[in-house]
């Protein structure tokens, strides 16, 4: 099986003229057979990035139009979903992020330092309990996820919702694999903090509370 990373390496080493030129029938077959089935996944990703139905729809539409335009860059039989997600993510960064002009919700200096290093400060376990997580409702988990900054939210969506590997995520996001790991770890720690707050609000005991009582 060919992985998406192998495709990108292959594409990067190919000049424009070396890329395969598909016939009109082949283009239609790739588009309908390999691209169209991912429409719902793409919309889910787009909606979780923009939180707006119309923007999400525009983003998906824009992605499909670009995919058709650059279809010769796609190698048939490789990971079409990852290829489409990469286009969607780039469109979001280039157009929708500028349009929304949202203020940054994270300390970027701290994040940059973090991103540029593969070393992750793995701490001990938090006092969030497995049982508390299992008892949480979908809305509570969704809210916690949605409250994360977009870069952190994105890695969790790609990994946990869409099931991409670290290697595929690195290609989709254009970042080194070590950065994927560290960003994902950081994102999960932030998510755990949110979920711990929910757990306390819901009245579930955390380990630290139990220790205090004893």
């Amino acid at each position, binding site marked *: 099986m060919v992985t998406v990373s192998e495709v990108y390496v292959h594409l990067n080493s190919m000049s424009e003229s070396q890329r395969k030129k598909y016939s*009109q029938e082949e283009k*239609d077959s790739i*588009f309908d057979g390999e691209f169209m089935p991912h*429409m*719902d996944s793409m*919309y*889910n990703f787009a*909606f*979780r990035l923009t939180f707006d139905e119309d923007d*999400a*729809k525009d983003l*998906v*539409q824009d992605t*499909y*139009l670009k995919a*058709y*335009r650059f279809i010769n860059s796609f190698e048939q039989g490789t990971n079409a979903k990852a290829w489409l997600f990469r286009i969607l993510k780039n469109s979001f960064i280039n157009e929708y992020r500028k349009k929304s002009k949202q203020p940054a919700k994270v300390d970027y200096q701290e994040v940059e330092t973090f991103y540029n290093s593969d*070393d*992750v*400060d*793995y*701490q*001990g*376990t*938090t006092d*969030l*309990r*497995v*049982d508390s*997580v*299992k*008892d*949480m*409702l*979908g809305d509570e*988990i*969704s809210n916690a*996820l949605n409250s994360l900054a977009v870069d952190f939210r994105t890695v*969790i969506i790609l*990994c*946990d*919702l869409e*099931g991409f*590997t*670290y290697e595929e995520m690195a290609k989709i996001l254009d970042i080194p694999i070590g950065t994927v*790991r560290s960003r*994902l*770890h950081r994102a*999960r720690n932030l*998510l*755990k903090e949110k*979920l711990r707050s929910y757990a306390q609000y819901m*009245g*579930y*005991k955390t380990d630290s509370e139990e220790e205090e009582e004893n």
Partner: protein
Amino acid sequence: MPSIWAIKPTPKKKRKINTSKICIIKIIRPAGQRKQSEMDKELDKSGQRKLECADVSRCFQLLERIIDGNNIPDSKEIIQEKLAKCQPCFEHFHLEKAIKEAIHTKCTKFCMSEDMKSDIRKKIQEIKLDAR
């Protein structure tokens, strides 16, 4: 007429467990009575696990890579050994796994309405016709 010995006794029907009821009981249990999972209790009693991990960074990173489905050789053996011997690794593994599963199974997947899909298909069709 068949011999009486040829008639096999009817096997007792297995009692079906209504899992929906179990879930309801779990949700409404008051916070003060919440217990650790049975697995937790069992393994805590044995007292065999280290309470501190000698290399938290390396171990947690490895466990997360395994949970995320990356291809790690001997991953089953690694998990068995780590979870049996190290309490922080045990707790981290189960919490990370529970969060991942909760995100995957409980978060709403937003789907496109049929109107939206047909709009996009129309646009694509226009582009296809222009390209010909």
